[in-house]
């Protein structure tokens, strides 16, 4: 596990950018943290690092559930904020995104429960101050351990 602190939204975004360098098609990133913790901010950094144009605003997908972007691989930005049950998630076509041809970033990933795959990178954000965040990164699976090693 990697534990660090960022001092501003810009730093949180920069961290996302750095992580994205070592991601490839098929990778899954789970973002966990309360409202305002910086999940979308981190996702914006990940998107930039994946080659999504800065002109494409990576806005919160809470309402539409999934937003798609084209970078060096397709990016599926998924948000489970409005999901109430795992049945709803299954009928959303969840597996097609997860095992599709792109990187999946999943906000509120804890709501997926047992439907989360066994291997993914878990990133937890915690509010420490108005701009400061504690960020914990945990790898599930070898590939994601390598992603974390390269981050150090």
């Amino acid at each position, binding site marked *: 596990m990697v534990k660090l602190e960022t001092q501003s939204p810009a730093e949180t975004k920069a961290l996302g950018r750095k992580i994205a360098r070592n991601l490839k098609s098929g990778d899954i990133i789970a973002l966990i943290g*309360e*409202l*305002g913790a910086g999940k*979308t*901010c981190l996702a*914006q950094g990940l998107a930039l690092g994946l080659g999504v144009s800065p002109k*494409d*605003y990576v*806005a*919160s997908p*809470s*309402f*539409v*559930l*999934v*937003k*798609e*972007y084209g970078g060096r691989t397709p990016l599926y930005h998924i948000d489970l*904020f*409005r*999901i*109430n*049950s795992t*049945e*709803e998630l299954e*009928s*959303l*076509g969840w597996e097609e995104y997860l095992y599709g041809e792109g990187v999946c970033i999943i906000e509120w990933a804890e709501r997926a429960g047992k439907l989360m795959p066994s291997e993914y990178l878990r990133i937890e954000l915690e509010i420490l101050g*108005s701009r400061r965040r504690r960020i914990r990164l945990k790898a599930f699976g070898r590939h994601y351990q390598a992603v974390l090693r390269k981050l150090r």
Partner: protein
Amino acid sequence: MLVLGIETSCDETAAAIVEDGRKIHSNIVASQLRLHKKFGGVVPELASRAHLRAIPLILKEAYQVAKASPEDIGAIAVTNGPGLIGSLLVGVSTAKALSYVHNLPLIGINHLEGHIYSNFLTRVVHPPFLSLIVSGGHTSLVLVKDYGKYELLGATRDDAAGEAYDKVGKLLGLGYPGGPAIDRLAQKGDSRKIKFPRPYLPHSFDFSFSGLKTAVLYYLKRQAVDDKGGPLNRDSGSIPPPTSLPVTDIAASFQAAVVDVLVKKSLKAVNKTKVKKLVVGGGVTANTTLRRRLKEEAAEAGIRVYIPPRYLSTDNAAMIASAGYYRFQQGCRSDSLTLNAVADLKLS
């Protein structure tokens, strides 16, 4: 000419029959919330499967209410983006099949374009004008230069305005969706009690409401500490409203911040583009304070403002049929075999 409109981009399954882009013969919206109840809670609310079940019923009803049959229809218009791909595909596939079977021209419509045309169903308005589209999924300022000619001036960089409402509603423990509940509470509150930030982004017509939501969160946390109340309820994501200040004042203060930004930026864009007309659309335009302030401040500035009635401000297919009619008049046709749903379709 009658146009059949079909809309399935997000939660609503909708079909409508509209004459000459302006006269509604039928406008059927199956709020999937009601559908959910009808099927005894078996059908998930947010799913393409729910659209799939609803669409034959909705189409049948649209024809019945309009007292029309497929032979009376001149063209089919369908939302082909932006939205949730699985949901969009239900509408697009249905429209393609109907177009092929009945040999009718097909027109793919951008959902945002539909929201602009929701105004054409009740009033006469001609481009050029400035349009503010504000909903759960979108907050955009669009210059409509002519029928079907758009220039996107600005959009939200993070949360849409409607989404900020839903999230603050959640923080206040008001349930989903948060917009109508906050609007009701705000009418009884004092909007000057708390100074929440106004994210104006001065050199741009973009919006940013994420910071405002977080400001409400910090405010509630500070109050919770001051009240020496219990720890935050992390599971539900809501914080018990502070005892020292009525929730009505928090709702009113938050709402004032959102409305200030929406109204000021829209009027600024109208002035900059010198079009003198502001046409708004999207679910958030049902908001009481936004409607009032837009009318008041536009009148003061000598700008004509067009706001759709509430039943046309949320997602519906009549607005898609209307947009389809005008596109048809311009000679637009989509291929009934190859039209595709595009999740991130841009307005063009």
